[in-house]
């Protein structure tokens, strides 16, 4: 099972003939991801690492029936490409690019909303179900199959924790990075809900950071609906107040979004709060 991607995921790479597209397609294929088609307008008939290239998602859908898309389309064309994938019936969209105009992101998410289309990102490292499918930029050696589901806003933090778990011999069902932008699609609560419903996931790791309220929303959901053990690590405890640390969401406003307020909400929801990746491992070992 795992969540979002698994052995049945058939991937189309949008923007496959660009520099990132080629590089990442190679990496996805090396991991064993079933990349069935690529799209770059005007490049029909070419191939990238053996993957056939089409002018449009419609053409690719007719011949290769992908069910997930990863996009490396340049920011100014990302909205159109996302709509193309969504209209054709792609149900999972991973938007890796940063710098998509905000109104375009809002439009994409408004269209996806309520249509059962999952959008991860933009500005995301993507998602990996170790041993089954990688739909993102994850360094392969940092992830091994197992029963811990990890969700993170930050991509690099998801690698860091994945690496720590893997080094400790603890495998993962799926690791999702949501993206660090000021507007993004799937959020922590959604991922926790999926992990909660996934029979293969036994422990959920929720990685959060200062700023915003999505970890609080996830904590409320956990308190209400999640029976599986949840371990959380909130980074930015030592950040200065009122300064933006890269992720636009990471600004402390009053008491809202501080590490302390999040940790408190999570603990109230019965979540095990760790202070470092190493502690995440310790807690999981105790739970197991």
């Amino acid at each position: 099972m795992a969540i979002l991607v698994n052995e049945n995921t058939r991937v189309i790479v949008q923007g496959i003939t660009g520099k990132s597209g080629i590089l990442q397609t190679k990496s996805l294929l090396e991991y064993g991801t079933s990349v069935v088609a690529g799209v770059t307008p005007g490049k029909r008939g070419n191939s990238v690492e053996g993957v056939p290239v089409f002018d449009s998602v419609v053409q690719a859908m007719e011949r290769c029936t992908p069910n997930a898309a990863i996009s490396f389309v340049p920011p100014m064309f990302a909205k159109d490409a996302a709509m193309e994938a969504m209209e054709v019936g792609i149900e999972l969209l991973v938007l890796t690019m940063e710098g998509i105009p905000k109104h375009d992101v809002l439009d994409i998410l408004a269209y996806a909303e309520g249509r059962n289309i999952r959008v991860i990102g933009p500005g995301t490292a993507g998602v990996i179900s170790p041993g089954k499918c990688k739909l993102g930029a994850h360094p392969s050696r940092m992830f091994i199959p197992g029963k811990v589901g990890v969700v993170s806003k930050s991509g690099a933090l998801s690698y860091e924790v994945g690496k720590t778990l893997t080094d400790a011999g603890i495998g993962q069902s799926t690791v999702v990075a949501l993206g660090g932008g000021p507007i993004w699609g799937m959020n922590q609560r959604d991922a926790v809900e999926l992990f909660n419903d996934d029979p293969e996931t036994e422990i959920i790791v929720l990685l959060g950071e200062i700023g915003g309220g999505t970890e609080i929303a996830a904590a409320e959901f956990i308190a209400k609906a999640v029976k599986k053990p949840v371990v959380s690590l909130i980074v930015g405890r030592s950040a200065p107040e009122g300064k933006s640390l890269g992720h636009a969401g990471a600004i402390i406003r009053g008491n809202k979004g501080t590490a302390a307020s999040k940790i408190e909400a999570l603990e109230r929801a019965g979540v095990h709060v760790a202070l470092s990746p190493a502690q995440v491992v310790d807690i999981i070992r105790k739970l197991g």
Partner: protein
Amino acid sequence: MKLYEFQGKALFEEAGIPIPRGALVTADSRKDLFAPSAVKAQVLSGGRGKAGGVLLVSNMEEAEKAADSILSLELKGEKVSALLVEEKMDIRREYYLAVTFDGEARTPLFMVSPSGGMDIEAVADREPEKILKLPVDPLWGITDYKIRAMADFLGYEDKKEFAAFVRRIWKLFREKDAVLVEINPLVVTDKGLVALDSKIELDDDALPRQKALFETLGAEQLRITGQEGEKGGGTITYVPLEGNVGLISDGAGTGMLTLDLIRDMGGEAADFCEMGGLTSPEVMYSALEQVLEDKRIKSLLVVLIGGFNRMDEMAEGILKYFSDHKSDLPVVVRLCGTMEEEGSRMMTEAGYPVYDDLRTAVSDAVRFAAEGE
């Protein structure tokens, strides 16, 4: 890109949104100064009123004095180099109206309040029931029923005028790729609604398709105020802090984690510097330039974990920097992920040790910094 009030108002005028009659005055050219009027400092920061940046004058003498006074101010670090001089309005009521977006709800958001003219964040804190927030479906646009709800909330009678006003604001917000259009106060006069202030921020990510607009506004900012509006959109985030461990990371999440670990291990970071998702040797080089300007730094900690990011490119940037800038600073590089073998090889061959474990790297960087004091 943040716009000055006079620039926002020019966009308002173009969009058919009523503004007071006004003129721009600079230190070099005061010919358009008039009275009676309101003389207003043109700065990008807020709170200018309390700091003496807005003065009401009745005659030309007062106007000249006010101009002298305001042009000599520095407001939150910004030197005032331009003034907007506007007719005085007969104000009956002051509203607050803004449209921006709510990232967590993934939707554009209108906000209105009958408590205009005040610090809206204070209102939000103390009397949240005085702010009406209405999300908008961006594909559908602002609906009449939401406009009616806003007018009812404000108690404004002329629904037709209000609807036309709000629709123009929405159109401006969308067509100019704004991330914020704020009017505080939006005043009710005997002639109807007038935007007495303007705070507009454009989306830097939209620059490629708003090129002409950005260029015009940018050139104007340079010419008139001597400085451009703040810009985001660059890949490097740099925040100076108080410690002595120089920190660079290739992601905000790991950067914050490292910040926490440094403190947990008894150190203090000199900065927070992260390079964003997809970086390059040049970005790495710039980050080093930026961070190492700070001479309090006693050790440098570079934390890299590559996904889209390539470790060979990161190594290239680091080695280029240190070949251009000889330095005895202890350098701790944690490098893993995409192309890590190549990156490690390059670093090791150049004599820089490479770490794989974050905790060990942080621990060494903190120790080196302490030893350097």
